[in-house]
């Protein structure tokens, strides 16, 4: 369904519940290997290993000493890092959700998905500084606190994703999942450096790149316009038809640069257009890695 229509059904809380109900249910699989129920892999026996986990059948058949490695079901600790800067408060068409409104509903949906699976989820909101820090908790009532925080005003003049990501690093000490939701109108190198710190701590990193369709193809209803960045207040006069193709090329190149920097930080990157149904970015972002929230 059109996200604007879904958003019109009610508050963030209601919308997120509807999306989650229609999305999926079930346990996620932990990326961490352990000695649990479900078989994952073999490794060679080493002196000192617990004899209970030796694969005796393989030993009987092949005379090889192998240890059974099973998938461990764990409680994931996830942190949603949400950009609430001024640039997110923009929509390219009258009936379309702003990037911030779309991102808030997406964040609420992810949080609810995680909490329903008894995982812990926290929230960090940032613009020019860190606005909100909600540590990860697994209680259902914790979601209402997250939703309440999402409804708070933000929209400072700049985006400091580095501060938000480093706050997430200090907040979640155990390896978990960090989901950055932002329009990424910032320096990719600084963000990639901050993500590398998180990757070094063993976190799985996912970046949901929020874009309005009008930002992707310069879909502005004007022949000539004076464009102004709401954050830096810089202006640029341009004839839309003249620069449209060059603009699309610039967007594609910038996205490629982001992908390159983020892959260097072991982070997955997904473009999320604000006219897409909410389920699509969730599926792409999490199912590709087989780490379902």
């Amino acid at each position: 369904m059109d996200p604007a229509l879904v958003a019109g059904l009610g508050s963030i809380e209601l919308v997120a519940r509807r999306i989650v109900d229609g999305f999926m249910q079930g346990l996620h699989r932990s990326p961490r290997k352990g000695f649990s129920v479900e078989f994952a892999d073999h490794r060679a026996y080493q002196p000192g290993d617990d004899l209970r986990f030796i694969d005796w059948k393989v030993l009987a058949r092949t005379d090889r000493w192998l240890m059974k490695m099973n998938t461990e079901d764990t409680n994931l600790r996830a942190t949603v890092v949400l950009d609430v800067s001024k640039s997110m408060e923009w929509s390219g068409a009258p009936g379309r959700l702003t990037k911030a409104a779309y991102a808030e509903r997406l964040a609420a949906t992810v949080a609810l998905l995680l909490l329903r699976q008894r995982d812990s989820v926290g929230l960090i909101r940032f613009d020019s500084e860190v606005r909100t820090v909600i540590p990860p908790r697994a209680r259902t009532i914790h979601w209402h606190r997250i939703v309440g925080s999402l409804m708070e005003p933000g929209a400072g003049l700049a985006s400091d994703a580095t501060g938000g990501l480093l706050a997430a690093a200090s907040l979640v000490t155990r390896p978990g999942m960090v989901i950055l939701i932002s329009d990424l109108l910032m320096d990719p190198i600084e963000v990639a450096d901050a993500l590398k710190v998180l990757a070094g701590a063993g976190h799985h990193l996912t970046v949901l790149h929020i874009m309005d369709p009008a930002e992707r193809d310069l879909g502005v209803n004007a022949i000539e316009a004076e464009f102004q960045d709401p954050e830096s207040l810089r202006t640029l006069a341009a004839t839309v038809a003249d620069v449209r193709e060059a603009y699309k090329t610039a967007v594609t190149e910038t996205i490629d640069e982001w992908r390159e920097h983020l892959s260097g930080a072991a982070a997955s990157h997904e473009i999320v257009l604000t006219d897409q149904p909410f389920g699509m970015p969730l599926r792409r972002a999490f199912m590709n890695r087989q780490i379902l929230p």
Partner: protein
Amino acid sequence: MSFLAPFALLLAGAIAIPLALHLLRRKSGEHVEFPALQYLLRAQREFSRTLKLRNLLLMLIRIAIVLALALAAARPIGQMIGSGHAPTALAVVLDNSLSTSVVVNGQPVLARLKDAAKAALARAGNGDRAWLVTADGKVVGGDMEAVRDAVDRTEAFAGAGDLGGAVSRAVQLVEASGIPAHQVAILTDGQASAWTGVSSLDGVSTTVFAPDGTPPRNRAVVRAIPEPPHWTPRGTIRATTTATDNEVVNGTHARRAFPRATARREGHGESGDSSCRNTSGKYTSK
């Protein structure tokens, strides 16, 4: 090439507008809040050469348009290869007063005026309408061929005519034609006696053709002596003319009445007697 309204060329100064727009960079246009300005800046930076070239081309086109408008407003006169025009109502005012019968360089002035009239009619296209208005008040309209024939048939008449009235009539004809473009061509020898009053052109585009060169001197018949004194069909008239330089030219007429007259004088202005005789009903002098 010449211009009917050369002052309109001053409009060419308006090229300063596109030049200023190009140099000062337009600040006009809609104000749009656009957070992804960094992509736009990148596009401008990476493709600035192409954009500059395109903007330069745009400026040159705008300047060319302004120059073309100024040139059109100046109403250039000249024949160009392949040039055409919009459907036009054309009225040719032909001066056939007696003074146009004078012979200059071996040819009557009227003949030159008629050639000019036919040249004007030859430039008319299928969508045009034409009329011929002569100084004696006659009007011929219809298809182009009929008007050309009327020009050919036009002869000088014994009088000054009313050229001013003919011009007014021509203006009325083109204005009543229902065709948006109007043109009046006045072909005259420039004798002041043919203009009895001031004509109103009502803004109708008008072209005046007058033969170049020094106009012939005015002469007056100061004496006419019939021979024999009692006129007979075979008699002659000895006439004495005079000019402002007191040059006296004598001539001899062979007949008494010449309703349509074309005078031709030989002897290159030499003073003295000259005889005149009639040839096929036309007034010819020798």
